[in-house]
């Protein structure tokens, strides 16, 4: 006879054990470790939030200090491995296995621990992929989440950084898991209910607000002439001709330069209203001038950005906001939006190989993918037509019957041929492959697969890979924009010239762009202070970005 | 030599120089007759706003009272005081003001003599010893514009490597001889003979000519280019219209 309701009984027992430390649902911060020891069982799958931006830092600290005799062999399932505590739990033997998406600041340590065998790696996922698995085979037993405030019933207000929380709670609470939230304050009534209280079992009041990193702030003062040139090429050679209105931008300086050129160079090209009006994008401060100049109609966001709260509140025409006026972000929905409802992804990477595979992984750093692979891939389930999508599809398959032909999302890799410290962007063999060999991985951790990439933009020009008809053409198109890197200098000059004649490669002069016009005076804002001015004083940049 | 030894040897006829937590203020009778005003920094103390303002007050009062006696600046200091408070209050103005007072006094016929008898560095050095007409040193002095560990941090060269390089050029390395070679230190006194006599000789030799340190640095092969460049610019500027 099968015993049913096992999971429910187990959850009830965990909650009963935890309740001894609680008044109603509220637990003191100093009892957080004891609470986790009472609720978590050896071998549990635990989601420790762990997002791209916001961090349940108090609960992370509490988990890292539990007694490893009682709590061990945990399987961590979280999108972001960001805080040192996220790896301390492996160091201390509390956790054993890891499935994750992104590990920005911990990328070097995670690489070291993988090589040292301290972590049993499931997989490095894309965000949507990990979220999907929360509902199939990686459902958490316990979720440790972060919110701004809670009432005594456990209703949560997440503030602008809602991010992963609804997804994590959905998967945990409705599958007999326990949800524990850390909050900055307990209030009588939350400003808006982001998570209903019946899905939250314990609330821990933290002594200080949860940590959020300003990941999406790019100081315009650091944008170089080379980045401006690539931005000019992208606007004139891709945004304009395809008429890209719905898109996602990566977080690098090249895309920040594009954002800052919209009200100046973009205006001069007569592109206002024709491009860049609807975004799946975090509230990038660099986009403020374009928003103020009337370019942007709508933005849906994965998370928020430090210092943008008042600006977003005042520009609710553009952003998604709650009744309380603050941003409502949602990583899962925004990733879906970026995958299905955008016609272009444009972003930078660290390495591109001869076929166009790209990766941000080096042998010393395993940064994970975050959202780029979802944005930067063709959605095979897409069925609605748009002009850029159809045109890209036609370029890829000019002879196919129009009504049966799939469109293509534009996936654009933008960057300068040499990066920081003169490290070449183009390589014969990706570090990701070397890493896969060393760690005996079944899959090399690629960010964007070659067959999804449609264009590569460097200061030397644009390579349109949709127009390449075979492997050789593709390789030479890539070499043809690879500048003075080893890959670039090994080009077949004649073939590159033929590709240029066919428009597969387009140089600045082919687009009537003089590289000497790529000047910082083209930027709508040249400093963080300029962004503050554009925002009418509504943008309040964090201290590390100020020089006043 | 201790500070007391130095003062005794410099002023055998007597002095009232007091050391208040590293700030030296007072006057002294000269062996040759007449008197000298004395200021200084002792005990390797840092020079901050509170100290600098007392030193400049003493110099200004001396100028106000008139007379022709020299002003002695005795230095065994740290660098400027590195603190939030000193910077907040405008330390650069206090140090510049002290230097201005010393240079002004000298130009008003009160020859300024620096005596470096210990350490000094950076801004403190500029505002005191290097703001005098003529700087002399005692053999044990160990000035360091920049210390080797900091230099090692910035240049990413090992201290051993820096020491090796210092052998071929005096231009960056700490130490009295290196600094003397660049022309900053006019002469190094003999501590075994009377400092009073050496001071008297020095005062007798001071002439009204301008800043000679760059010439001295060229002569001693410590600064190969400074004097000529300054002179060329000077001449070009005066010829230009």
């Amino acid at each position, binding site marked *: 006879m099968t015993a049913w309701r096992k999971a429910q009984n187990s959850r009830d027992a965990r909650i009963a054990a935890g309740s001894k430390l609680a008044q109603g649902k509220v637990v003191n911060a100093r009892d957080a470790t004891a609470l986790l020891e009472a609720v978590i069982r050896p071998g549990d799958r635990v989601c420790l939030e762990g997002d791209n931006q916001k961090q349940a830092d108090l609960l992370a600290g509490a988990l890292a200090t539990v007694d490893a005799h009682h709590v061990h062999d945990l399987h961590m399932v979280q999108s972001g491995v960001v805080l040192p505590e996220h790896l301390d739990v492996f160091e201390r033997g509390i956790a054993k296995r890891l499935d994750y998406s992104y590990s920005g600041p911990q990328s070097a340590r995670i690489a070291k621990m993988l090589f040292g065998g301290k972590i049993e790696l499931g997989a490095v996922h894309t965000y949507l992929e990990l979220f999907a698995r929360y509902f199939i085979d990686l459902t958490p037993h316990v979720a440790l989440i972060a919110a701004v405030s809670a009432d005594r019933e456990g209703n949560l207000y997440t503030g602008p950084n809602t991010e992963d929380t609804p997804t994590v709670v959905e998967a945990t609470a409705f599958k007999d898991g326990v949800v524990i939230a850390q909050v900055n304050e307990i209030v009588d009534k939350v400003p808006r209910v982001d998570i209903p209280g019946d899905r939250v079992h314990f609330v821990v009041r933290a002594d200080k607000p949860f940590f959020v990193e300003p990941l999406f702030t790019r100081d315009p003062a650091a944008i170089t002439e080379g980045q401006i040139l690539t931005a000019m090429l992208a606007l004139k050679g891709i945004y304009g001709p395809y008429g890209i209105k719905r898109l996602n931008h990566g977080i690098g300086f090249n895309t920040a330069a594009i954002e800052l050129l919209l009200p100046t160079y973009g205006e001069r090209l007569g592109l206002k209203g024709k491009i860049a009006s609807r975004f799946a994008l975090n509230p990038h401060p660099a986009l403020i001038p374009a928003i103020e100049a009337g370019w942007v109609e709508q933005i849906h966001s994965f998370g928020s950005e430090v210092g943008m709260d008042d600006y977003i509140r005042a520009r609710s025409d553009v952003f998604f906001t709650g009744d309380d006026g603050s941003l409502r972000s949602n990583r899962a929905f925004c990733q879906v939006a970026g995958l299905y409802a955008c016609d272009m992804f444009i972003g930078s990477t660290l390495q591109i190989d001869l076929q166009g595979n790209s990766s941000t992984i080096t042998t010393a750093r395993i940064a994970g993918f975050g959202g780029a692979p979802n944005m930067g891939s063709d959605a095979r389930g897409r069925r609605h037509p748009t002009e850029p999508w159809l045109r890209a599809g036609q370029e890829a398959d000019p002879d196919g019957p129009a009504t049966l032909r799939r469109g293509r999302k534009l996936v654009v890799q933008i960057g300068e041929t040499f990066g920081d410290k003169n490290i070449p962007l183009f390589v014969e063999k990706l570090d990701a492959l070397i890493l896969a060999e060393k760690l005996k991985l079944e899959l090399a951790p690629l960010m964007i697969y070659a067959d999804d990439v449609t264009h590569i933009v460097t200061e030397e020009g644009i390579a349109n890979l949709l127009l390449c008809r075979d492997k050789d053409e593709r390789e030479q198109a890539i070499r043809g924009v690879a500048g003075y890197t080893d890959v670039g200098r090994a080009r077949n000059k004649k073939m590159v010239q033929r590709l240029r004649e066919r428009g597969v490669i387009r140089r600045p002069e082919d687009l009537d762009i003089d590289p*000497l016009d790529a000047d910082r005076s083209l930027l709508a804002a040249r400093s963080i202070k300029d962004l503050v001015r554009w925002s009418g004083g509504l943008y309040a940049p964090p201290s590390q970005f100020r020089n006043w | 030599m201790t500070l007391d030894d130095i003062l005794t040897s410099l002023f055998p006829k007597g002095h009232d120089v007091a050391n208040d937590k590293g700030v030296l203020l007072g006057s002294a009778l000269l062996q040759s007759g007449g008197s000298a005003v004395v200021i200084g920094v002792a005990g390797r103390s840092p020079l901050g706003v509170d100290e600098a303002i007392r030193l400049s007050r003493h110099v200004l009062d001396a100028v106000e009272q008139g007379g022709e006696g020299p002003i002695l600046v005795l230095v065994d200091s740290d660098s400027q005081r590195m603190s939030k408070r000193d910077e907040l209050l405008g330390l650069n103005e206090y140090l510049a003001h002290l230097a201005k007072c010393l240079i002004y006094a000298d130009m008003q016929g009160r020859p300024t003599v620096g005596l470096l008898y210990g350490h000094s560095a950076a801004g403190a050095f500029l505002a005191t010893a290097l703001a005098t007409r003529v700087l002399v040193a005692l053999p044990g002095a160990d000035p360091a514009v920049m210390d080797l560990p900091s230099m090692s941090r910035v240049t990413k060269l090992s201290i051993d490597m820096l020491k090796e390089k210092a052998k071929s050029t005096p231009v960056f390395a700490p130490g009295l001889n290196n600094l003397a070679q660049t022309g900053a230190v006019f002469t190094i006194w003999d501590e075994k003979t009377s400092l009073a006599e050496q001071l008297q000789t020095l005062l007798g030799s001071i002439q009204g000519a301008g800043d000679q340190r760059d010439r001295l640095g060229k002569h001693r092969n410590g600064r190969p280019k400074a004097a000529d460049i300054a002179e060329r610019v000077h001449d070009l500027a005066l010829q230009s219209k």
Partner: protein
Amino acid sequence: METLSYRHKAQERAAGSKSLAIIGVVASGNLEVLVERLLPDTECQVDINTAAEGFGAVWEAVVADFVERRSPGGLKLSINDGGARPDTVALRLAQAVRLIEEDDQ
């Protein structure tokens, strides 16, 4: 430090009448280019003093492309380099020629 020097035949004399110009600063990843009109009209010389050693082949390629694209006849270009990327070098060379080609005031 490494010093490199390249001399090329140029198709045409660089335009303009200025005798010299300078662009850029020596900093990490940046360089300065001093351009002087000192050579016969069909000659061009580029002298380089660089902090990044072992990139001779790249410099050679950058300079050759530069001479082909800009035809800087009569010019001597002197470079102090703080380890700039090749694209920055190419940009500064082009900027230097544009400056010396401007009309003299």
